[in-house]
């Protein structure tokens, strides 16, 4: 499993650089700040064993994040803070996730070059932009028209050509393009919509960040096995052992 992932990662990295090189000049801006952001993500990842699989976050994901101009995805008044490792408000009660969480989610989705990925909750469009070089196609649905339209325009302008955004109800997924190898659900929900489970390909992965705005509690990973059965895993973004001394109860 892992060597294949590595290969996919390598290929994705190549594609990622190709995709981003082809975008416009702003990508060059603030590269130093992005590099520092990547270092923060790496250091967080070293202390978050539960949510990080294998040897740490896929270098291809980090390479992509080092290129996506995050400052162009946040409102003007937030641009100064765009590369801090923190969530930022983007209006309408929504946030752009903390870069570390974006990295974890993209890593967990583990998309390959031929994969179709569905995102519920486009928000600023940043997550879709980070997924873009790692998948064949990213479909993203946003419930709030203003956010969806703005994100679609921004992604088009930055030439993320394989991202398609529509405004609508994410509950039913996007059946025309199903099944999906990966699904990211960033919109809060009391339960996982059954159509999304149905549209997840066998062997596919769904990631749901759970928590309040500005405070991700854990990431939920939903996996559909080859036999169609569903399991979930709750992954903490932090290495925290609730028992003092770290011992297990017997």
């Amino acid at each position, binding site marked *: 499993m892992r060597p294949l992932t590595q290969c996919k990662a390598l290929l994705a990295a190549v594609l990622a650089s190709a995709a981003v090189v082809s975008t416009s000049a702003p990508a060059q801006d603030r590269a130093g700040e992005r590099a520092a952001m990547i270092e923060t993500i790496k250091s967080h990842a070293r202390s978050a064993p539960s949510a990080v699989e294998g040897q740490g976050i896929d270098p291809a994901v980090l390479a992509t994040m080092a290129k996506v101009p995050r400052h162009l995805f946040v409102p003007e008044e937030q641009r100064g803070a765009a590369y801090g*490792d923190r969530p930022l408000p983007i209006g309408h009660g929504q946030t752009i996730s903390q870069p570390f969480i974006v990295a974890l989610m993209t890593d967990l989705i583990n998309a390959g070059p031929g994969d179709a990925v569905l995102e519920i909750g486009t928000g600023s469009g940043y997550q879709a932009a980070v997924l873009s070089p790692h998948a064949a196609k990213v479909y993203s649905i946003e419930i*709030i028209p203003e956010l969806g339209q703005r994100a679609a325009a921004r992604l088009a302008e930055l030439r993320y050509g394989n991202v398609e955004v529509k405004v609508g109800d994410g509950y039913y997924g996007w059946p025309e393009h199903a099944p999906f190898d990966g699904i990211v659900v960033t919109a809060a929900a009391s339960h996982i919509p*059954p159509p999304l489970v149905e549209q997840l390909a066998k062997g596919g992965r769904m990631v749901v960040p759970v928590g309040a705005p500005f405070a991700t509690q854990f990431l939920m990973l939903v996996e559909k096995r080859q036999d169609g059965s569903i399991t979930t895993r709750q992954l903490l973004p932090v290495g*925290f052992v609730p028992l003092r001394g770290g011992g297990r109860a017997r």
Partner: protein
Amino acid sequence: MRAGRLLPVGLISAATLAYEVLLMRLFSIIQWHQFAYMIISIALLGFGASGTFVALARRPLMQRYPAAFAASAALFGITAIASFAGAERLPFNALEIVWNPRQLGWLAASYALLILPFFFGATCIGLAFSRHPDEIGRVYAFDLIGAGIGALGIVGLLFLVFPTAALRFVAALGFAAAALAASGIARHGRLAAGSLGLAAAVIVVWLPASFTATGPHMSEYKGLRMALEVPNARVVEEQSSPLGLLTVVESPTVPFRYAPGLSLANVQEPPAQLAVFSDGDSITAMTAYGGDPATVAYLGRTAAALPYRLLARPRVLVLGAGGGEQVLLALNAGADNVDAVEVNPQMIELSRNRFASFVGGIFNRPNVNLHLAEARAFAATTGERYDLIQIPLLDSFSAAAAGVQSMHENYTYTVEALRDYLAALRPDGVVAITRWLRVPPRDVLKLLATAIAALEAEGVPEPGRHLALIRSWNTATLVVAKLPFGGEDVAAIRGFAGENFFDISWVPDISASDVNRYNQLDQEYLYEGALALLSPDRADFTERYKFDIAPATDNRPYFFDFFRWRALPELLTLRTQGGAAMLDWGYLILVTTLVQATILSTVLILLPLWFRRRALGRAVPRLRFGLYFLALGLAFLFIEIAFIQRFMLFLGHPLYAVAVVLAGFLAFAGFGSAVAARWKAAVGGGSAVRAITLAVVVIGFLAGTYLIALPSIFERLLALPDAAKIAIALLLIAPLAVFMGMPFPLGLSHVGARSEEFLPWAWGINGCASVLSAILAALLAMHVGFTGVVTIATILYLAAPALLAGSRGSSPDRNRSRTKPSA
């Protein structure tokens, strides 16, 4: 005539206290209820600053007393509205504090604005004390009774009008006090009074609603605001009471589909729903129902449906009816009869009347009875016996939801509560409790520990055989059975869990291979926790766990307090990686507020006192007098707040407890202060110190008696009707409060005889101590419980007279004092 002269004092005191309660309500709507404590600390800042101001500017103010009082009261009226309108427009975002220190600046700006009305309100009272040094008992009585009426009045008013409308009345009350005081101005007094009266009327009638509307300024991260961002979502009904603001929202384009704990195996879409938001946040759903059980079959695939697998045609009690989801589940799972309990009358109005046809009239069925009551009180007093007591995911009956006094007492999840539920079961009945599952777990482990303690207290030899715990990915349901689970029960539980991809964390004869199958945690905390809590390792496990999961009791009813100091450094270090989500912010805000309040009182009270020490003259032992009023301020509110906490269970409602206990203490203490001079003459033989000593001995005796006797009095009388219980509560409070009202005015007259300059300080110190004490009492109660807080208060009272008695050169008779104000 004389009483009329002090009427403005009563009015402004009522307005200031009402404003404090009202601000808590308003901030629960636009922010979160944790901020209620910050309002207390803001009030403190206002009281403290006014004490300093009156002391420094005493002479010029006294020369123009009626004008100064009227101006200050009018400024209260203006700032009561303007400060709130300004504060709600600041771009403060509480959720962002962890990430953005600049938010602290906006918080400070809110403080700066909101301190103003408290400053002006308290200035009026400080002026009155300085103006009438011979009638301190009477001024104090007007102050206390006014405050009592204000506290009770605002609660009543909030049943009639929305909080923003109540704000106008409170401001107008300030102007009314100003108008009354202005009539005493020598020149143009009538003109001033008339125009101030007119201002009061103008505020009530003319002020544009948008000026203080909460809707547009509610935090955009609250559920209601987010729901209304969705296209075509709209508010269809809004109701307000002191219990909270209920907002009903319909969202036809993108339905709510609210169904926590729903199985991943479910394929059905929930039908149309109306969401009911409480104070713009916590949500309960009213589900459309046309009588066809198939349309709501998904409810049978939520974790909370587990007990219906174990029972045939059960008689069900739902504690927390909300929008009726659990009633619908019960009816469709074949319940014979359902009693549903809801604490908020307006929620009942919505689900049983206003939207009755939408919910399919489920609350009007002959086999469904909807009761207006607090959950625990209902369970403790019901004569019925049930097969199932279902406690769903609703915190609507918690004190916190009220926001009137945001102390987080919760009598639903204590050891005694679980014993009450077990007692209300038929022999083979079960209690089922559903909670959100947080990772790492807190609530669920604490619930498990509480259930084990309750079963043991009932004499159950093997509690583990009476427990079953299953979890979905975001909820956990604990089932506690009166009799041990049999083999059939266990098979049914396993079957239900397996079909729905729920994990079993505990069931009799569970083995390690049963757990963590479908919803995998990196460690099966709940199973391991259950094993440890059911073994002799329990104390060690509870001690080593980084969250407080020791069972909650009626003496320390803080189920939702998981905070442990020793986990704080680790969680703060990890705050940018999810550590912040594991912190108990309520507790931290409380501690922060206490620290803030302590610093502010030092700066505002002690520093000026130090600089002005010469003015007070040498005959005044500042430190001892200061400590006397500090001790009284602390002790009075310690007892009052502990009583509010304790009476919540007896009166069956946090709101009744706050209103009855607060008003009872204020009014009877007011009476006590009015008769204090007679007590001094008759019992103290003219000596203030002796009179105070005798009063505190009575206080100590009564407090001690109540500590021992209250639990059994409550237990016996809990079943009485509300009105009788309120009368009994007031009867119990009266003797204690009357004596608690004496030490302050007696102390003031004793001290005032030495230096009238000291009076504003005494007032300021006592005011600060009272407010500090409100925060401190809540913190202490979490650690030492109700009995601990009352014991500390009693010790403070008993020690207080020594601080006055020991003063050098003291003479009990104020007429012999030679020290005159030296300024």
